């Protein structure tokens, strides 16, 4: 078995909100294999977004370790941390909120190239154009403002930004739940194509199994900060063992149910 891209072990995170302790992550351990997608499913407030933010080092963990490409990721500081951030990127749920309202698409995509020294100033416009075409947008979009394009196009730009740093792992936090039904399929197909051609690992966060089962190799089910069930997607779908798992599977619309007695 190949070396996992990321191993999270015993992650804990507690928030104190208005004097109340809220456990967002309770001893969470997960492993992500290269080129595979881990679907992380749970109800709102189950801690899946907190998990994403701890993985991205946007929030500090209270306890636990994360090994990213064999390195102790949570111990990195300052310049070393910023340089290593290249390996793990994120696509946010709301593509409108994920961009500086003043930014142009070209500027947004050039930033990671500049920060990580992936292309010098002269080479950047061509690389930005190539990134845009990679996510199915015309290269001429580079001069547009982020707020001048549609929601689906904006999410494509967000994916292009994540690709720009050539990461090993991309965390998608409910990437299609703010989009029209008709656009969701296109974005999911784009994600699958990119994974096939570039070999990225994905963490795909969602609140139901309907989308996750289409794109995930492994599924983990979260409930109040704990991983209650994890395993290969077909196995979870066919035979959920936890109560939450059964509820999530039952909530997926099944075509064959209609034919059943």
């Amino acid at each position: 078995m190949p070396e996992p891209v990321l191993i999270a072990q015993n992650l804990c995170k507690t928030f104190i909100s208005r004097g109340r302790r809220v456990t967002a992550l309770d001893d969470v351990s997960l492993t992500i294999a290269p080129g595979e997608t881990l679907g992380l499913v749970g109800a709102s407030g189950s801690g899946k977004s907190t998990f994403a933010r701890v993985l991205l080092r946007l929030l500090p963990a209270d306890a636990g370790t994360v090994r990213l490409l064999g390195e102790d990721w949570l111990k990195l500081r300052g310049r070393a941390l910023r340089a290593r951030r290249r390996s793990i990127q994120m696509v946010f749920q709301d593509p409108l909120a994920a961009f500086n309202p003043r930014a142009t698409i070209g500027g947004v995509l050039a930033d990671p190239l500049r920060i990580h020294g992936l292309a010098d100033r002269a080479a950047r416009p061509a690389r930005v154009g190539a990134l845009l075409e990679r996510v199915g947008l015309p290269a001429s979009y580079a001069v547009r403002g982020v707020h001048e394009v549609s929601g689906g196009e904006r999410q494509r730009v967000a994916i292009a930004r994540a690709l720009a740093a050539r990461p090993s792992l991309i965390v998608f936090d409910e990437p299609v739940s703010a989009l029209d039904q008709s656009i969701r399929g296109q974005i999911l197909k784009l994600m699958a194509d990119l994974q096939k051609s570039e070999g990225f690992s994905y963490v795909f966060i969602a609140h139901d199994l309907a989308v996750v089962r289409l794109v995930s190799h492994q599924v983990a089910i979260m409930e109040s900060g704990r991983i209650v069930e994890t395993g290969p997607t077909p196995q979870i779908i066919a035979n959920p063992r936890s109560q939450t798992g059964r509820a999530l599977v039952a909530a997926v619309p099944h075509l064959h149910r209609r034919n059943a007695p």
Partner: protein
Amino acid sequence: MHSPEGVAGLCLIVLLAAMAFAAPLLYPGDPLAIVGRALTAPFTDPALPLGTDRLGRDVAAGLMHGARTSLLVGLATALVALAAGTLVGTVAGLAGGLMDEALMRVVDAFQIVPGFLLALAFVSVTGASLPVIILAIGLSAWTGPARLVRAEVLSIRERDYVAAARVIGMHPAEVALREVLPNALPPVLALTAVIVATAVLVEAALSFLGLGDPNVVTWGSMIAEGRNVLRTAPHLSMVPGLGLVATVLGVYLLGEGLADAMAGRKARG
């Protein structure tokens, strides 16, 4: 910028700025020099259209040169206050914790002393000159922008686009300057009009009390000078008084117009 108040404000400010720029051309001499008989009534001598004061100084020259002082003090104070307030507010908002607490207590300390008293005390201790007066008025004016910038920064730093900038490995200083600050500033700019207008009035009040820069003409000192002959020559106080009214009104109206224009652009965009 199509609202009637914005246009009216712009006209007033353009007029005052034109007066300020034209002052050294139309009245190249020292406006504090004695040029005619004392207490010449206005509109009696074509060379002295607004008459002279008790010492025989040209009121028209004083009015025009006074516009320079007022606008200079207003704008310079706003600049000082915005720069200091933005710096403190940004650092407090981004650093958080103990740093935030400490900085905001300093802001409180400046805010609980009435601004005019603070300026008065500062000028009495250090002696009056234009830079000192600008600094003195700025002492109380920077707390407003500091609070506003901090509140904006606190809200903006939780936005996804700031998280996204950190995810791509952007340096914290660049995050602050490129992602947070430009989006925190528009509401602060709306505050500028209030700061400029207040500074103009405080400067006039200081001059009225004799704490202005004695080497430049200010509307406040002209009003103080005219106060002694208020019954016999009321125009000596009224002319600079109208100048003050026009300036403060113009600045407020222009500020309103700009705020409307910004809100309109936001609503349309």
